[in-house]
């Protein structure tokens, strides 16, 4: 399992810090920024709670491709686009409230599956460079999405309400209001403690998803996925259909990303038709990495730690920046920089680790060869 054998002795503390350098760095940033920002604890906790409910589901869906050794799925945006298409229809048919959310989730599934299969197949043709490829797929499919939403919706795909359409008569407006769906999942059974609103139902959904992931790891498919992630050739020799397993991992990730995006958008209350999905992959990945995950290892714990740390930084950075430099934009840029920086660091550490491991294996092989020769 993912538990590491605990090492005793003086090196364990140093190792602990080394292995968790990114979360520790963020804890330090938050520790400095929170007092400076001057936010009340109630406000801060409430904001973090909101963002936890909004983002946790989306971040959890990144776990599947990591299990299958395909790295960070930058193409999770595909699921987000599927969810947006589904929500546009739901809004157009005027299905509101919880039923609207359920309908949008169901509608997003076939679109996500289709996109996921497409993405998985392309990634199978680009083994070893999945991340850059999935990154480019996200851009490419964004083009297709724009083609669909900006030009086909209206003349080809019927849209009933002209309020959704651009004044020119086709294409969807830049913002689609989900006013009557807004936070209906969060508000149902929500508990208020002081200034903090706890979206119980959303958290229950997230908890169920976590349980599903825990259960899924133990199924045959989950085991296969991890075997593929460890070593594709060994897995293939063991009779696992490597290509198919990889596609399944991406499809699952995309489908759950779609569901997660519906949760995300019902919390936001409106869709920015052409930009909601663009950054979602980036900051979900950043949050996961802040939580201490790496390109080849991620757990549920990383997700929650990551959401809390990353979004605390996100909330306090602009205010802190404004207080320190007198310019609020500094903080805004700082959090962008921190998001990109953390991804860069994680990628660099992963690649360096991979090279070191490769070197070690090479040395071992050489050693074994020498021993064989000497015998």
């Amino acid at each position, binding site marked *: 399992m993912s538990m590491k054998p605990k090492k005793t002795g003086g090196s364990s503390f140093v190792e602990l810090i080394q292995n968790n350098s990114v979360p520790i760095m963020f804890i330090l940033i938050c520790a400095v920024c929170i007092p400076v920002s001057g936010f009340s604890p109630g406000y801060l906790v409430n904001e973090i709670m909101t963002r936890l409910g909004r983002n946790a589901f989306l971040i959890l869906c990144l776990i599947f491709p990591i299990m299958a050794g395909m790295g960070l799925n930058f193409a999770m945006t595909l699921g987000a686009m599927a969810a947006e298409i589904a929500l546009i229809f739901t809004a157009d048919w*005027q299905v509101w409230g919880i039923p609207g959310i*359920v309908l949008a989730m169901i509608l997003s599934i076939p679109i996500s599956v289709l996109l996921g299969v497409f993405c998985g197949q392309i990634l199978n043709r680009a083994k070893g460079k999945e991340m850059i490829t999935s990154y480019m797929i996200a851009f490419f499919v964004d083009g297709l999405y724009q083609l669909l939403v900006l030009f086909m919706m209206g003349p080809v795909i019927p849209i009933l309400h002209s309020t959704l359409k651009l*004044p020119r008569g086709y294409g969807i407006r830049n913002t689609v209001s989900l006013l009557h769906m807004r936070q209906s999942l969060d508000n149902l059974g929500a508990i208020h403690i002081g200034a903090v609103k706890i979206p119980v139902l959303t958290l229950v959904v997230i908890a169920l998803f976590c349980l599903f992931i825990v259960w899924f790891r133990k199924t045959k498919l989950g085991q296969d996925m991890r075997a593929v992630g460890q070593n594709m050739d060994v897995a293939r020799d063991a009779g696992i259909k490597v290509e198919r397993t990889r596609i399944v991992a991406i499809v699952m990730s995309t489908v759950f990303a779609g569901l997660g995006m519906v949760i995300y958008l019902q919390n936001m209350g409106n869709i920015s038709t052409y930009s909601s999905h663009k*950054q979602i992959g980036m900051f979900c990945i950043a949050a996961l990495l802040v939580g201490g995950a790496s390109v080849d290892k991620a757990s549920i714990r990383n997700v929650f730690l990551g959401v809390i740390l990353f979004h605390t930084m996100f909330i306090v950075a602009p205010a802190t920046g404004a207080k320190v430099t007198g310019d609020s934009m500094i903080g805004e840029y700082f959090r962008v920089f921190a998001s990109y920086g953390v991804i860069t660091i994680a990628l660099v550490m992963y690649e360096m680790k991979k090279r070191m491991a490769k070197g070690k294996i090479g040395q071992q092989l050489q050693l074994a060869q020498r021993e064989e020769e000497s015998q």
Partner: protein
Amino acid sequence: MKKIPMRTLLFRVGAVLLLAVIAYSMTIIGRGHTVYMDSKRLEYNGQTYETPYKVEVYVNDEQVAKLYDKERGMSIWIGQKFSMTLEITQEKGGAEETQEVSLTLPRKMDGIILNLPALLAGLPEEAYLSEFVAAPSEEEAPSDEGITDEFGLSTTEELPAE
């Protein structure tokens, strides 16, 4: 191609069907309507129905409107079985009387106008119910440029083509 066992196939088809059924039922029970209540004098079949002095409209125990003569209230409703509570004051200073009203909304209509005097007099549906057609408003158009992301920064895709 490998053969999929019958049981698995049935299970899959069943799951898809189940989702489809749920989705369809959601379009019915989740259909949202905007209900407008008009307190407006109405002539129907030669008879005139006068408005009460004041009507307070409660939907889901929440006051959505307090209507005097020729006023219009608005509420949203999910699903087709609409119910509201009306607190009617017939004359100024008179006693309040409470009346529960429930009716079935037509599924295809987005906006529905209910004429309260007609409704209270127990007239047939065609008398009290009519569709609300929004006048097309083009005012909100200009806010269409300047996309910002979660960071609040504009993500201009690329070099502007001049």
